[in-house]
């Protein structure tokens, strides 16, 4: 996109590493976007850092998405798009969870907007968000069985 999106990328990596060296397992720079891979256990704290650290100030959670990498393990890759309104900066936090234990901490306590975003990921992929105040389906009917956006769910649906 623009230079702006990447110019401050190092600030985020630096600050996160300074806070906790293990928070940054990988940094991916691709097409002007920065993705910071965070271990699953440190996600909530890293997200809190991103929001509260005065050098980062990522106050807007723009999006939560999941990519199903089936059959590669760890299977589910969660992507969190953050925006700092004041610093005009974007960053992506990423963490991965396995198929046997698709559980990750909920970020509702960090950004209230994570509520419906995480419900959608739960609804379509079956990821459990620990600590979510109201984790139930949002788009599909309540009695629906299965998680349609998983790669092993057929696009025509199941009868």
């Amino acid at each position, binding site marked *: 996109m623009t230079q702006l999106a990447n110019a401050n990328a190092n600030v985020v990596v630096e600050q996160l590493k300074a806070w906790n060296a293990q928070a940054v397992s990988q940094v991916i720079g691709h097409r002007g976007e920065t993705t910071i891979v965070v271990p699953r256990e440190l996600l909530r704290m890293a997200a809190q850092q991103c929001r509260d650290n005065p050098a980062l100030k990522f106050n807007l959670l723009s999006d939560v998405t999941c990519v199903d990498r089936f059959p590669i393990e760890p299977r589910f890759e969660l992507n969190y798009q953050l925006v700092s309104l004041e610093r005009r900066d974007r960053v992506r936090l990423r963490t991965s969870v396995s198929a046997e234990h698709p559980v990750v901490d909920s970020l509702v306590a960090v950004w209230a*907007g994570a509520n419906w975003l995480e419900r959608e990921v739960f609804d379509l992929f079956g990821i459990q968000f620990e600590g979510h105040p109201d984790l139930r389906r949002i788009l599909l009917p*309540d009695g629906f069985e299965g998680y349609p956006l998983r790669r092993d769910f057929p696009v025509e649906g199941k009868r």
Partner: protein
Amino acid sequence: MTTVETPVGASKTMVLNMGPQHPSTHGVLRVLLELDGENVVSAVPDLGYLHTGIEKSCEDKTYSQAITLTDRIDYLNPLGNNLVYCLAVEKLLDLQVPKRAQYIRVMLVELQRISSHLVWLGTHALDMGAMSVMLYCFREREEILKIFERFTGQRMMTSFIRIGGLALQPPAGWREMVKRFLDMMPARIDEYESLLTENRIWQGRLKGVGYLSAETLINLSTTGPGLRAAGVAYDNRKAFPYSSYEEFDFNVPTRTESDCFARYLVRVAEMRESLKIVRQAMDKITDQGDFKADAPGIVPPEREKMKTEMEALIYHFKIFTEGFSPPPGEAFATVESPRGELGCFVASDGSPKPLRVHFRGPSFINLQALPDMVKGQLIADTVACIGTIDIVLGEVDR
């Protein structure tokens, strides 16, 4: 089953079901209202009545085929949806779009913004009882739809913005059509304002209704006119410019009251700003020039070339049968839709079909603020609040 639990003994409240079939929910939205008389104690939206699995369907199509699905997400902003998806795929491909195509994209997307705000204003006024405004807004919108039909062949589901540029050259006579619209429109917006802005009933219905602080809105991930009416001047066109917006001169209207009336004023001002942008774009677009990138294997060749040159024929065949494969990776593109930050996340695994396409729909995310907005207000205010958030159910549910 989505329900609202009323504690035993607390017989004061009643649960009223609003929707999914309701004239004022702007689509198939169901809201469960727990009422204490006329006052709303809590509102629980129940979504999914328009969920058609667009994101899943995109995974089964090639990158170019998926464009037709994107039109239908936010059906009042098809060109915007096309644009955000194409920007994301162009990012993945590292494909540069020629300036002229970017200017045409800007012009069309801004016309789309005006048409979307006209529908919003017309339906919002209708909900509040100002029924004639609806017909005036739709009359002007007809002119924009005629422009789109001339350009793209379609009034709504245009699929005109393609990967690498546009589908076609601008049609003959387009300048006169757009100029006629630009000359007519400012007076019409003045007309709407004369009917509404100073109107005591309009002000009475909207002032002080649906207030949320800027901090709450940011925390709830609200973007767009709702956030700008709270004083936060966040607009993707200025903050993270795309498609040559940095070359255009326009303002981002904001207010501070953060109520329904402020959001009305912001959207009307945005219509005027969009007219400015369309005029500038019209001046920048040259009569001759490229309307798409030169990228054989990704952007289809001109039809004449395809019929006479062997290479072009082969490229055409490959693009429309197998499709092209972007290198593995992910991209997240955002645009400023009439509703807020519209984003598209595309993940490629190196195959001709996307691994994952996800749309960050501002209607879905902004709707999250509804329960907080209506708490403690009257049922009539609920209708105002649903209208003021400006939702399109196609985008909420996908």
